[in-house]
């Protein structure tokens, strides 16, 4: 494993590398029903979501906005969508050039994640995934801050 190059989204693994990857880990095939498998990046995303939601709520509080329960549900759905987009952007380049990309298309919940971890390392995959999430937050933040009136900084009032 140590000789495996770090993940580079600009230079995804070749078919040969992919074949090596496929044979790298022996063991039983992944279960067909992935519902029992831990969701990749679940912990990382939950933390990202928790922190982002807290930030959104802080800005809402500063501007005097109160979201309804329905809006909170919708926000949850929006985050779910973001998770899938970041997940797809992270995994697609890793699977490019191999027939495993087709498997991923057919069954996105089972990208043979454990094998990817063995090759690229959990930390590297997590970093890539979170980079996609953070890119969104970087763009969202200034838009939200524009909604906070000047003076509503929690420090001083009229």
């Amino acid at each position: 494993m140590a000789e495996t190059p770090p993940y580079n989204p600009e230079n995804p693994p070749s078919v040969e590398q992919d074949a090596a990857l496929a044979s790298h880990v022996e063991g039983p095939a992944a279960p067909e029903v992935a519902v029992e498998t831990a969701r990749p990046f679940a912990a990382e995303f939950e933390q990202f979501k928790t922190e982002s939601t807290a930030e959104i709520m802080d800005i809402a509080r500063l501007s005097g906005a109160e979201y309804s329960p329905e809006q909170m549900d919708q926000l949850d759905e929006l985050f779910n969508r973001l998770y899938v987009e970041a997940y797809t952007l992270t995994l697609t380049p890793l699977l490019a050039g191999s027939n495993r990309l087709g498997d991923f298309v057919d069954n996105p919940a089972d990208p043979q994640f454990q094998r990817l971890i063995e090759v690229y390392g959990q930390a590297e995959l997590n970093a890539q995934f979170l980079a996609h999430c953070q890119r969104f937050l970087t763009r969202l933040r200034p838009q939200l801050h524009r909604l906070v009136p000047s003076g509503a900084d929690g420090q001083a009032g009229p």
Partner: protein
Amino acid sequence: MTAFLPSVKSASSKELADRQFAVLQEAFGQASRSFQTEMADRHQDFLALLKKRGVSLEQWTDYATRALIGGALAGTLLMVPGAKQSPSDAAQTVQAAAPAASAQLAPTEALKPVDVGSELKNLLPDAYQAPTSAGEQQIGQMLSSAFHVSAVPELDGHRLNKVLTVMGGEQHLRRFPGDVASEHTGLSIAPGAGGIAPGNGAYGLWANSKAGLSDEAVNQEQYYIAAQTFLAPGFRDNPNTLYQWFKYRKMIAVNAKTGQACVVDIGDAGPASWTGKSSGGSPEVLDVLGLGEGSRKGPVLLYFIDDPNNTVPLGPIQAQAPVTVSPARGGS
């Protein structure tokens, strides 16, 4: 604990929440559009597989969301994650459940990509031939409809010298004293790619130090264009006013051949007329417009975005049209 200004108090917390939530939805929508653009730009093999299966990227994303998360949709769908059902089968199921699947867009609507490149071929047969005045308006209407922004060739009585420009690649601009190319990170292109201009842009530095750099400033530099503001009608008569008016003015830049688009701001003046080019794009803008490789030059339409409340974020934007999703035939 927190004191609010009277103007804020005048709106109810629900109104404020609705307004703020609309920004959130737009931001998440923008993220989705960026995702689609990136997939289209970099993962054609993935899209080819989807095409083979007869599903769109959006349908697949719905499918993947259910497969990975389930959530609110799980109870309404027949498919379970990991089951032997192809996306094309799933697309039918998704279609049946589309109102819930696309709840973040509208209760009964989904969005489908619009091929702006094809639309432009009709309205602008020669991508280097400037449109007539009527053509400018027609193109503006088409862009407004496709990108859901108000795209106009003229705003507040001001316009650039050209609507159809030949855009070339620019370097990054310095944002604060000592700024270097490698500090320009977080882009879809490699950090530092494109280099950095030796002098400041026409509007100077954004901040006095790196610590003072705002997110907004980072975005403005990232998605800046250089426009020939000095050749704009009326500039000689009123240079100071127009200088300020054009400064960081928001526009939509559209590759006139392909329809790839980016919301940009005017961050510099140029290029000089003798260069044969009539606008410039930051390394990121060039990349978004599909001009980042090869000659790094091509025909680009520039329209102002009428956005008085500043709700349209800078960055890649994808053309989409709402479609009413009806239940699949034979669905229960």
